[in-house]
C-alpha cells in the first residue's frame, strides 16, 4: 500500500496511517509500538482538546452575551489557549500555610489522570478506539468516579473553609449523580446486551437510541447527571464562585489550578463523547444519507425568498457541491462522532450561558427524588420496549414515562407550580 492510498478511504484514515506506520517496524516491536502509539496520541491530543475547549467556551459564551470573546492573541484569538497555558506555567504556585502540601499537590494530578484515562475507551470512529474493552462502560463509570477523591483531597488539603464546603458538596454531588447515571446506562446495556462501547455503537446503525422513548429519557438523565458529575452549570455547586469563591480550588494557583481546569474540561468532553456513543449513534451518521440532506437544503436555500439573491445562489451551489462530494465519499465516521460531541459540548456551554445554578440541597433532591426513580422506571420501559417487536410498543412506553414524570413532579411539589398575582395598587 502506497502512502497516497492512505487518503483514499477517509473513514479509515487514522487506522490505515497507524497500520502503515507500524508496518515499518519489525514484527516483534509492533505490539509494543502499537500500545505506545495509542498512549502517545491520547496524551498529546487530550491537552490539545482541552485547550481548544476553553477557547470554544469563551468564544461561545461571549457571543451569547453580545461580546467578542478573545480576539487579541492570534487570529480570532486562536492562540489564546497557548498564552493562557504559558501564563499559568509562569504563575507563582501558592500553597496556603497549614495546608497539607503533599495532598495539595497530588489532588489536581489525581483529577486529571482519570479524565485522560477515559479517552482510552472513547469510540472516535469505526475501528478507531484505543482499547475496545469488553467491559468498556464499566471502566468508564469506575474511572470517572475517581474524581470525587481528587476533589475531596484538594478541598481538604487546602485548609480553607470555603474549600472544605466545596469539597463536601462536590463529593456528595458526584456520588449521588453516579447512581442515576449508571442506572440510565443500564437500559442501553439491556437493549444491546453488551458493555463494550464498540458494540453499543455498532448496534445503533439503523436508529439512534435517542429516538426511542426509553433512549430519550435515559439520554437526558445520563447527560444531565454527567453535567452534574463534572460540576458544570447549572450544577456547579462545588465551585460556586458566587458563594464559595472558588469552592474546592479556591486555594489553587498556577499550573495546579490549570490542572483542575483541564480535568473539568476533559471530563466534560468525555461526558459529551459517551452520551454520543451511548445514545446519539456514536460514529454513525443519520439514517438519511447526507447528500440527500444537502440537496434538500440546497433547494430550501435556493427558494428562500427572504434571503438576498446572491446568498441564495452561493448557498445553494455550496450545498449541491457538498451533496455531490459526500455522495461520492461518505462522511468519515470520526467526523460524525466529533461533530456530535462538539455539539453536545456547545450545549454544555449553552447551559452555562443561560442558567443560574441550583442550590446544593435542591441538586441532591433532583438526583434522588427525580432522576433516580425515573431511571428505574426507565429500565422497566426498556424492558417493555424489548418484549414485542411491533410499532405498538411506543404506546405503553410513552404512557409509563408520562405517568412517571407527572407523578414525580406532583410528589416532589416544586415551588415552580405556585402561581402568583401581583396587585397594581394606586
Amino acid at each position, binding site marked *: 500500500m502506497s502512502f497516497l492510498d492512505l487518503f483514499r478511504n477517509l473513514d479509515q484514515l487514522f487506522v490505515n496511517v497507524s497500520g502503515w506506520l507500524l508496518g515499518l517496524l519489525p514484527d516483534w516491536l509492533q505490539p509494543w509500538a502499537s500500545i505506545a502509539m495509542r498512549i502517545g496520541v491520547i496524551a498529546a491530543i487530550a491537552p490539545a482538546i482541552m485547550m481548544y475547549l476553553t477557547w470554544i467556551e469563551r468564544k461561545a459564551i461571549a457571543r451569547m452575551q453580545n461580546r467578542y470573546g478573545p480576539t487579541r492573541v492570534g487570529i480570532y484569538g486562536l492562540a489564546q489557549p497557548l498564552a493562557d497555558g504559558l501564563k499559568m506555567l509562569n504563575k507563582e504556585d501558592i500553597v496556603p500555610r497549614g495546608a497539607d502540601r503533599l495532598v495539595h499537590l497530588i489532588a489536581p494530578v489525581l483529577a486529571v489522570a482519570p479524565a485522560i484515562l477515559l479517552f482510552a475507551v472513547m469510540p472516535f470512529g469505526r475501528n478507531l478506539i484505543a482499547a475496545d474493552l469488553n467491559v468498556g462502560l464499566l471502566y468508564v463509570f469506575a474511572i470517572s468516579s475517581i474524581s470525587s477523591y481528587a476533589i475531596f483531597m484538594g478541598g481538604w488539603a487546602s485548609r480553607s473553609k470555603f474549600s472544605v464546603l466545596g469539597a463536601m458538596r462536590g463529593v456528595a454531588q458526584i456520588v449521588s449523580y453516579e447512581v442515576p447515571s449508571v442506572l440510565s446506562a443500564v437500559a442501553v446495556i439491556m437493549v444491546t446486551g453488551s458493555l463494550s462501547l464498540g458494540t453499543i455503537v455498532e448496534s445503533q446503525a439503523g436508529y439512534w437510541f435517542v429516538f426511542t422513548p426509553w433512549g430519550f429519557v435515559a439520554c437526558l438523565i445520563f447527560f444531565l447527571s454527567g453535567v452534574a458529575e463534572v460540576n458544570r452549570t447549572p450544577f456547579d455547586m462545588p465551585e460556586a464562585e458566587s458563594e464559595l469563591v472558588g469552592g474546592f480550588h479556591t486555594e489553587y494557583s498556577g499550573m495546579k489550578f490549570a490542572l483542575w481546569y483541564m480535568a473539568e474540561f476533559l471530563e466534560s468532553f468525555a461526558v459529551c463523547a459517551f452520551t454520543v456513543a451511548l445514545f446519539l449513534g456514536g460514529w454513525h451518521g443519520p439514517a438519511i444519507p447526507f447528500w440527500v440532506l444537502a440537496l434538500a437544503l440546497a433547494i430550501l436555500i435556493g427558494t428562500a425568498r427572504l434571503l438576498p439573491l446572491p446568498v441564495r445562489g452561493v448557498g445553494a451551489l455550496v450545498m449541491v457541491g457538498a451533496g455531490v462530494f459526500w455522495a461520492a465519499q461518505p462522511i468519515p465516521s470520526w467526523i460524525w462522532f466529533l461533530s456530535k460531541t462538539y455539539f453536545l459540548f456547545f450545549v454544555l456551554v449553552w447551559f452555562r450561558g443561560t442558567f443560574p445554578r441550583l*442550590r446544593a440541597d435542591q441538586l441532591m433532591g433532583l438526583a434522588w427524588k427525580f432522576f433516580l426513580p425515573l431511571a428505574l422506571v426507565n429500565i422497566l420501559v426498556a424492558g417493555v420496549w424489548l418484549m414485542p417487536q411491533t410499532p405498538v410498543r411506543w404506546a405503553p412506553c410513552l404512557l409509563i414515562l408520562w405517568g412517571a414524570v407527572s407523578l414525580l413532579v406532583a410528589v416532589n411539589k416544586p415551588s415552580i407550580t405556585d402561581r402568583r398575582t401581583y396587585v397594581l395598587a394606586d
Partner: protein
Amino acid sequence: MSATTAETQLLEINLGPQHPSTHGVFRMIATLDGETIVKLKPVMGYLHRNHEQIGEGITYVASFPFTDRLDYFNAMSNNFGLALAIEKLGGIQASERGEYVRVIMAELTRLVNHVAVTGFLLNDMGAFGTPLLYAFRERERILDLFEAASGSRMMCNYVRPGGVREDVPVQWLERAREIVNNFPIFLDEFETLLTENEIIQQRAKHVGVLPKTLAVNASITGPMARASGVNYDIRKVDGYSIYPKFAFKVPLGSVGDVYDRYYVRILEMRESVKILQQALKDIPGGPAISPKGQAISKAPRTFKPPKGEAYGRVESPKGELGFYLVSDGSSQPYRYHIRAPSFINLTVLEDMCLGQKVADAIIILGSIDIVLGEVDR
C-alpha cells in the same frame, strides 16, 4: 426508635469583605450548621467616607457631587433628594421644565438601577453573567443619555435646587423617547429569559421571606417593602415634585420572598416607562432652572438659607432616600444627615437569612439591593 444525636460542629465563615458576591466591601460573619445558617452578623463600615461630616464643611451645592457617590447607580435620584431638601430649606421654587427633566432623569435612573440589580441578582444565583450583560447593554443606552445631558455617565452632578444645571441638549428628548419606547421590548426579552425559568423559581421562591409586619416594623422601604405587600411609595404618599400629574400604579407582592422582590422590580420598571412616556410627551418649554436656583449654583456661597431644618425625600430605586438639613443661617449646613435606604433595608438581613442555606444568604443579600457607598456613606 431511639433518638440519637450526632456531635456536630458549627462552622463560622467570613463572607467578605473580599468576596465575589457581597456587592462591595461588605462582610457577613455566618455561622453554619452544615450548610444552614444559624447566625449571621453583618459587618459594615469598610467604605465609610465621612460624607455627612464633609457635607457640613462645604456649601450646600458642593455636596451634590458627593451625593453622586452615595449610591453610584442612582446619581440622579440622589441629586434630586438633596435638591428637594435644599429647596424646602431655602424656599426655592423649581422651574417647570426643570421639574420635568428631573423626574425624567429620576425614572431613567430607576430603570438603570432595576435592570442592573436584577442582573446582579442572577449573577449571585450563579448565572455566568448573561442576564447581567443583557441588562448592562440596555443600561448603557440610558447612561449615554445621562452623558449627553450631564457630561458624565454615572457621576452626573446634574440636578440643582430649582431645576437642573443646564438644559438637556437638542435632540435629547427624541433620543430619550426612542430608548424609552424600546425599553418594554427589552423587558419582555428579559422576562422570557428569567421569569418562567424553573431554576430561578426553584431558587428564589419562598427564600428569604420578609413578613409584612417585620417590613413595617423595621421601616423597610422601596421595592423590598412593596414585595412584602406594604403599599408605600413616596411618589404616591408624599406626591413630591410633579409626580401627582402622572398616572402610574404601585406593584405589590404577596409573599415577600426573593422572587417577589425580583418581579416587583420588573413591574416597577414597566410603571416607570409609563411615567417616562407621559413626562416626555408633556414636557414644557422654558428655562430648566429657576432664577434663584441659577444664582445659587453660580455662587454657592451666597446661598444662606434661614435658620431651620428641612427633610427632603425621594423614592430612590432602593427605597426612601431622605436628606435632613439643619441650617444655622450660614452658607454651610449645621447638620447634614442622610437616611440611606440601603443601610436600613440591610438591617433585616439576619432575620431573612436564618434557617436558610449559604447559597440563599447570597441571593437574599442580592435581592435587598444594596450599594455599599450608600450603606457606609
